[in-house]
């Protein structure tokens, strides 16, 4: 376990060296979420109804932005080859990077949701459900994104290719995440949808490191 936590610690330390990058992801999230009211109009009721979906899509796009760098820096300077041949199994390396990615790129978004929700006139209860859904859903987004980043490593136009690969696989998490918020706000139980989000997370927790490691091995061959 120690090498795994050491790997997570390394990723976190590297990310913290450029805190500005993390701030940029949160800023992008806030900007996209702020953009929608300009497009759909300022009517408060409409904004309240659309808020869960809009905030989820903004979070999704923000997570997508930060994915390309997940493996690219290590790929370019040769660290990836060391990781592939190193003592920690490559699947755990992928998992460690994903954990660090979630902590630095997705968790700040969840924390930023209350601030962004002010723009949408959301009640405190709605904000709570939205944060819970995002907290359960964003780990899956990081995991699936890691698979996409590993597969597109070294490709031409990798920045555009990763969203093309990853967005169809994001759709279930998005659907269940938004439905959880909407159910809670309609007075129904959000539990089935949250359970589905948890199920998606558990499946991806198993599948993503395997697929990501397979992709990484092929990229350093």
């Amino acid at each position, binding site marked *: 376990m120690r090498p795994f936590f050491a790997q997570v610690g390394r990723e976190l330390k590297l990310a913290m060296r450029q805190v500005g990058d993390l701030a940029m992801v949160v800023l992008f999230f806030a900007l996209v979420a702020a953009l929608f009211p300009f497009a759909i109009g300022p009517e408060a009721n409409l904004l309240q109804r659309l808020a869960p979906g809009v905030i989820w899509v903004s979070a999704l796009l923000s997570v997508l932005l930060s994915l390309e760098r997940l493996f690219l820096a290590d790929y370019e300077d040769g660290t990836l080859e060391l990781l592939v041949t190193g003592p920690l199994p490559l699947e755990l390396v992928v998992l460690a990077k994903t954990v660090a990615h979630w902590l630095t790129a997705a968790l700040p978004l969840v924390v930023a949701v209350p601030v962004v929700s002010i723009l949408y006139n959301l009640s405190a209860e709605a904000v709570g459900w939205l944060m819970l859904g995002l907290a359960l859903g964003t780990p899956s987004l990081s995991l699936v994104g890691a*698979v996409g980043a590993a*597969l*597109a490593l*070294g*490709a*031409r*136009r*990798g920045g555009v*290719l990763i969203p*093309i*690969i990853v*967005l*169809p*696989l994001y*759709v279930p998490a998005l*659907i269940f995440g938004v439905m959880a918020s909407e159910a809670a706000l309609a007075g129904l139980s959000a539990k089935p949808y949250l359970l589905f989000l948890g199920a998606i997370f558990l*499946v991806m927790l198993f*599948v993503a490191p395997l*697929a990501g490691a*397979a*992709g990484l091995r*092929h*990229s350093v061959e």
Partner: protein
Amino acid sequence: MHRFANPGRFQRLADKILPWSAAGAGIALAAGLYLSLVVAPPDYQQGESVRIMYVHVPAAWMALFVYVLIAAASASALIWRHPLADLTARAASPLGAAFALLTLVTGSLWGEPMWGTWWVWDARLTSMLVLFFLYLGHMALMNAFEEPARGYRAAAILALVGVINVPIIKYSVEWWSTLHQPASVVRMGGPTIDASLLWPLLIMALGFKLYFVTLLLLRIKSELAAARLRALQAAKMRAG
């Protein structure tokens, strides 16, 4: 399966099969079209519009079948490094995407008079749209690398990750309440569709399947020919 890893043996097999599958496709499609457009009765509710079903349903079956084929080829490529598996996935992907697009378009054309809308976000249509995007992503990933081998590997992994969508599409009409009708042919308890509608449908499905086999074999043969051409050109450059 591994007997045909030898491209020469595969070429001979393909050359033997091709005339039969092409002729079979032609006959089945001609017979199927005649049966669906002329012989089959109109639906009591939908009238003549039901005849879109004879294109829409076989196209949907093919879109799903081709994805499963690509997933199997991808597994074969990753596990056994079967040389023709990568080419099969490469050749089949655009065909599957075309079938998926045909399904969506004919479904839209059918939905407009029947449901009053070109599109609805129910589970079946949404998961079919996701399948179409998965095909496009597969094609994009395969062609995104300078070195073709990396493209094949990456696309193979993507195809396997996305295969979870196929049972979701199949059972979407059972698990969720959808506007799209539930299964009437491939279901427990046998088909509920009448024989006068079922037989043209099955013959059209056979025609689509044989058409796909013909195109797939032609495409794999052309991929092998292109590889040979590249090898010959490389040898010529080295010699000259």
